[in-house]
């Protein structure tokens, strides 16, 4: 069956990869300790840019975690056998990425030692507190979902638990979007549009991650993914990428229409330096138009390596999008006195600067590595490799 996922002949290579990933996790933990010991003064974050690179990584992982479960939902909830075979891997990735994202978020706290307080003192009016609840239940529901998918005796419940997971996933990403959507003061945020936008972003980023992990697993086992499956998944990814583009256009067009928001839009779209470049070249060109071109290209869209390339570009674009939204949104100063030019020793009225530091990057990438570590160990010990009934396996030996 599935025992050949990481075949014995490749055991050495597997442990080497595991070791490398483990080292990255350790580097992330080391960075967190360093930040904790010296305080956030050693990071690029300031009283102006209060959330930095770790948050970009954390939110990417949390959003993608919810989105990757889409693959399982299409199988269980909408009854597509091809996706059903991929359900367990999707569930695993969802748990792994959420764990990685939360690790980053928690370790970035000013008082990470107060984790117990974060979990026991809940202000129910806070979207953050609501998210703590959403994450905890998500872990539980997805774990149950995995059980129903992977244990034959439990198969009968799979559809119901899958449906619960589907609904919960939508709630979870609504919650993530609402973290920003409920911020009344800042011009980049404070719109309910962010909730559905985060959901569609999760579909896109999550599927992109899934396709890359799937490709790695097939390659490792010298298997070839069925063309029809590849074709369907790449089309789905293209639809999601286009949908994210649609929401991006609506977001900016709405802002452009409101006179009070035009300065902010001018900053992001024209004069914002790194943010403008990341928006146009990172999110739009590399993260949206390039993958769409690949995914709809008559030849390239048939080659698995190009499809993986497109998925990687989608992820790159996702990071760029979150960077622009999070950091760019904070870099633009608060308008405390609309209609007046403000200045102070506290950088009022000025574009805030931010240069991410190495510890922040290491913490962020450490979270990605933690997700990879959980995934690698799990696929080694349990049958997560997608088994298609109609697949054409081309085994090397």
């Amino acid at each position: 069956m599935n025992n050949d996922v990481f075949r014995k002949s490749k055991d050495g290579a597997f442990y080497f990869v595991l070791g490398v990933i483990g080292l990255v996790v350790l580097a992330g933990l080391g960075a967190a300790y360093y930040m904790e010991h010296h305080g956030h003064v050693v990071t690029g974050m300031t009283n102006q840019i209060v959330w930095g690179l770790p948050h970009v990584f954390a939110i990417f992982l949390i959003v993608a975690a919810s989105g990757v479960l889409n693959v399982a939902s299409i199988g269980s909830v909408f009854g597509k056998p091809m996706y059903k075979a991929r359900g367990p891997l999707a569930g695993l990735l969802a748990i792994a990425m959420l764990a990685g994202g939360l690790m980053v978020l928690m370790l970035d706290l000013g008082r990470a030692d107060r984790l117990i307080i974060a979990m026991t003192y809940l202000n129910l009016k806070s979207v953050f507190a609501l998210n703590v609840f959403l994450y905890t239940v998500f872990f539980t529901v997805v774990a149950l979902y995995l059980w129903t998918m992977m244990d034959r005796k439990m198969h009968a419940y799979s559809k119901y638990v899958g449906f619960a997971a589907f609904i919960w996933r939508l709630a979870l990403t609504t919650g993530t979007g609402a973290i920003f959507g409920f911020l009344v003061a800042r011009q980049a945020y404070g719109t309910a549009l962010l909730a559905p936008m985060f959901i569609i972003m999760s579909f896109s980023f999550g599927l992109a991650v899934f396709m890359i992990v799937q490709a790695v697993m097939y390659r490792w086992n010298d298997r070839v993914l069925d063309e029809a499956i590849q074709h369907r998944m790449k089309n789905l990814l293209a639809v999601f990428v286009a949908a994210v583009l649609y929401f991006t256009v609506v977001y900016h067009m709405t802002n452009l229409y409101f006179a009070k928001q035009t300065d902010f839009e001018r900053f992001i779209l024209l004069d914002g330096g790194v943010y403008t470049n990341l928006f146009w070249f990172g999110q739009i060109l590399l993260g949206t138009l390039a993958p769409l071109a690949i995914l709809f290209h008559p030849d390239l869209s048939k080659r698995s390596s190009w499809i993986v390339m497109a998925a990687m570009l989608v992820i790159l674009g996702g990071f760029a999008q979150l960077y622009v939204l999070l950091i760019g949104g904070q870099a633009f100063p608060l308008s405390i006195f609309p209609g007046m030019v403000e200045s102070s020793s506290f950088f009022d009225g000025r574009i805030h600067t931010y240069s991410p530091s190495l510890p922040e990057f290491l913490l962020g990438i450490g979270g990605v590595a933690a997700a990879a570590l959980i995934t690698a160990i799990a696929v080694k010990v349990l049958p997560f490799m997608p088994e298609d009934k109609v697949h054409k396996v081309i085994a090397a030996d």
Partner: protein
Amino acid sequence: MSNDVDNSRRKFIAAGVAGTAGLVLAPGVTLLDMANARPAGEAASSTKRWGMLIDSTKCATGCNDCVTACGKENGVASTGRPETDPQWIRKIELKEVKSGKSHSLPMMCQHCAEPPCVDVCPTGASFKRADGIVLVDRHICIGCRYCMMACPYKARSFVHEEHDDQNPDVPRGKGCVESCTLCVHRIDKDLEPACVEACSAGNHGAMLFGDLNDANSEISKRIATYATTQVRADLALNTGVRYQGI
């Protein structure tokens, strides 16, 4: 000789008695002194709503008295790293785009009746006292900075590094968020916030502190008489700090 010894013994005994009496009586005297203040065991009451009125026409560009007094009172000092240094109160210079008219005023926590920082705080560390003062409970603040994202006034600071110059009345700590407390430790002793005191001491008279719930208080009378402004009134946060002249 023996008289000398007696004298010195008498003095010693007298000093001892006086000292003991002082130790016994002083707390009572202090209590009498503070009779007007709220006793330590009693909770803050919602019959009061502390607020401040700032007259920007009396606030001079370049005058930093309130900021200096706040720093001294609360132990908030600059480390020479302005981007990460906490600021509880700051002077903002304003210029109207069209007319070029300029204003200078202090900006700090506006002690909103509907504080966004309290709404978003996941643990409830950010809270509003019954008398309207918005505070951070340093024991349950986890340092997530969501309140800083939510505050429309950039009133909050994150403590980015260790501090060893704390005022015993004002505990501060690395990894927590902090902001103007309206000098709650002084208010509870029936004193005015340090910034207001300094502004009066300098004969500027730009800052007035008082109870917004008391119709007879000076601040309420002024607000009832003159046109005053709440900053970002469009957000309907019902701020405790009001401005005059902008």
